[in-house]
């Protein structure tokens, strides 16, 4: 058992060193015209999927300098994924519903 664990740690370390560590997946749901979380911490390369769980259209975007993205019109039920390529903190909003705000902290 200990030998297996040591092997896994070694492989993980090798992958990390090679920049091939597993990217994680996160899900943020839009419901009742709010994001399901207010703050989210991810790592560079992680994927965040935005799910429109509302019965209205959303338009998720961020205009934080250097980390801009826009999903544009997202009808109810649709999911769209964003991968963050660089570290930093960005504010995510909905262009239609001004009260919707999410802070994403992207760690190196």
């Amino acid at each position, binding site marked *: 058992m200990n030998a297996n664990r040591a092997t896994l740690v070694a492989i993980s370390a090798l992958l990390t060193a090679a920049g091939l560590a597993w990217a994680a997946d996160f899900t943020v749901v839009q419901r009742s*015209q709010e994001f399901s979380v207010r703050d989210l911490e991810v790592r560079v390369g992680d994927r965040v999927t935005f799910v429109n769980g509302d*019965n*209205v*259209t959303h*338009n998720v*975007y961020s205009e934080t300098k250097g980390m801009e993205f*826009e999903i*544009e*019109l997202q*009808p109810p039920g649709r999911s769209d994924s964003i991968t963050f390529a660089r570290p930093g903190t960005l504010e995510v909003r909905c*262009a*239609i*519903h*001004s*009260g919707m705000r999410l802070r994403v902290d992207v760690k190196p």
Partner: protein
Amino acid sequence: MARAGLSRATILRVALSAALALPACAVAQEFRLRVPLGLDERALLIPADNPLTQEKIDLGKQLFFDRRWSKTKSVSCASCHQPQRGWSDDRRLSVDHEGKPTRRHAPTIINRAFSTLEGWAGHRSSTEDLLLQLPFTSAEAIEGNLGLVAGYKAQFQRVFGTPVTAQAVAKAIAAFQRTLLSGNSAYDRYRAGDAAALSAAARRGLALFEGKAACVKCHNGFNFSDQGFHNTGIGTALHNPDLGRYEVTKRNVNKAAFKTPTLRDVARRGPYMHDGSIATLREVVAFYDRGGIANPSLSPDMARLGLSASEQDDLVAFLESLSGEITPQASQQPLLPP
């Protein structure tokens, strides 16, 4: 928010100020806003740098009705936000200090204590910010015109510890505006358990509002607004349409999109929409039943509703049940210092 009763800290501050001869504004007591049935006190947004006090609210009310701080001394806030018209304007387009029509209809100012983005396009981030940038006045006009009024000079010293300034005028009027809360409507009493508060027609209208007509998609929450910006097609057929929220964000989704207004007290005001182009509530309901006006940026959430004439009447009956109570004293013209 602090309670109205004297706390030990307040007593200590009063004693200290008396001993140190601090200006009276330093000991102004915080005002506890009475929130009527149906509104959510936890959602109140009172800026930390502009707490409510009775004296500030009283001063703000005087300024709200006083024409002397406009450039031409001809218009006040109450010229377009008329208490007897649901704090809105019965004219399609409001008129500026030179008598010229503005490009938008005056929105109601009730229940603004629950949100921050001001104006149909959300172009200002607070009431204070909006008041500081009104086109019908200027810092020079405010300080020049009101700074000569002895009564105001004394009041500003008492409330803010300063002479008359544009910033202090904005804070006082914003404080007064935040006290204009409309709740305790027939709808609120019905929700609170009084089954007889709504007529049968209004109850049917409520079911349509939340169901087939899907008005709650945008007119939701206790204040019947998602604080969102939507293109319903109003005004888009014009040669140079008003681009609304797009002017602020430059995002295509916001083209000709305007803020969802609260529906509280909606039957007391009119005409309706950001350009005042629809005269009656019944016509507004018919407009939404048609799915708005087709245009390239029409909100995807707009759709034909297929409401019968009697269903539309029921919706109007429900909307009429949203007329609430505002402290009567707020509507009465105050005495202005000569």
